[in-house]
């Protein structure tokens, strides 16, 4: 399928050794934000994917290796950009505070 599941797909059945995973949680004053949108931008700033956060504020991408930007949009907040490096077989964990 081509679709974005809230929070990103589960890792059930995914061979994580072959994936460059970027995941994390969006927080406002330490509380999870369940109605945010997280966008993955490539090294040229080009949009690559977007997921809505889960009820617990989580998100996940299966990126390629390299440098990416996470842009988080949420109601009543300015967009927040975070740089992240991804590598095959690793999970890059990012906490986003809005």
């Amino acid at each position, binding site marked *: *399928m*081509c*679709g*974005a*599941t*809230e929070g*990103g*797909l589960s890792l059930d059945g*995914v*061979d994580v050794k*072959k*994936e460059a995973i970027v995941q994390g949680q969006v927080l406002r004053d330490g509380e999870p934000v369940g*109605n945010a*949108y997280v*966008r*993955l931008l*490539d090294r*040229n700033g*080009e*949009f*690559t*994917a*977007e*997921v*809505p956060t889960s009820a617990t504020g989580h998100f*996940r*991408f*299966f*990126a*390629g290796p390299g440098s990416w930007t996470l*842009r988080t*949009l*949420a*109601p*009543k907040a300015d*967009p927040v950009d975070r740089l992240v490096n991804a590598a095959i077989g690793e999970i890059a964990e990012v906490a986003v505070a809005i």
Partner: protein
Amino acid sequence: MSRETALVNADWVAEHLDDDNVVLVEVDEDTTAYDKGHIKGAIKLDWTTDLQDQVRRDFVNKQQFEALLSDRGVATDDTVVLYGGNNNWFAAYAYWYFKLYGHQDVKLLDGGRKKWELDSRELVSDLPKREKTTYTASEQDKSIRAFRDEVLDAIGAQNLVDVRSPDEYAGRLLAPAHLPQEQAQRAGHIPTAANVPWSKAANDDGTFKSDDELRQIYTEAGVDWDKDTIAYCRIGERSSHTWFVLKELLGEENVKNYDGSWTEWGSLVGVPVVLGDEKGEA
């Protein structure tokens, strides 16, 4: 078509929430999004079960589409307003699908579910009750749907627009980055295709850019406005969004969506494929 007839904004929707002849339809990539809250009165279509044949890789046929909309209480002459998440990605696909079966009055909510949510507008959990109808569809309008042989003939003759991300176009990724990458088919793009990621047409809040901005984006990518155009992506949803931009917003005459897209092309035996960031030769 034009922006005035194909798009409505959130204020327009808010004013028509109690209009029985206006049917709001949520179509989301995350098919559970509707269940957690939707615009008042909106019904849901599930793109994986409602809009696809469950055995062959194809759409539901005319009779199945008629049965679906009759059951959901959509009348042939209703105004259908589609919205969804991710910049209306799947809502634009459903828009194309309604047009494929000849629905006359169909519109997109500009910005879709995301802008509605970011603006903190109301979502409800109540399920609407709509009386069943007798919906009549037309035969598929093949002037907006491209098949693989047509795409092969279009190399070097028409505009091909690959609307996937640059990394998918170049073959560095096989799927959008929120999905696992392991796939059977070959990576790359169709020779001569311009890469204009579908998302370039949308602002961060999911609304469409202005006509002038849109025309400039495709012109700079090398789209020849004197030629016919075929758009494709991985499975035909993101390219519906670009089809919407070119055909419905900019009013171009001959624009088709190749719904087979990369999952078909990248699995075909013997067709040409280009790797890397260059368009390649015909």
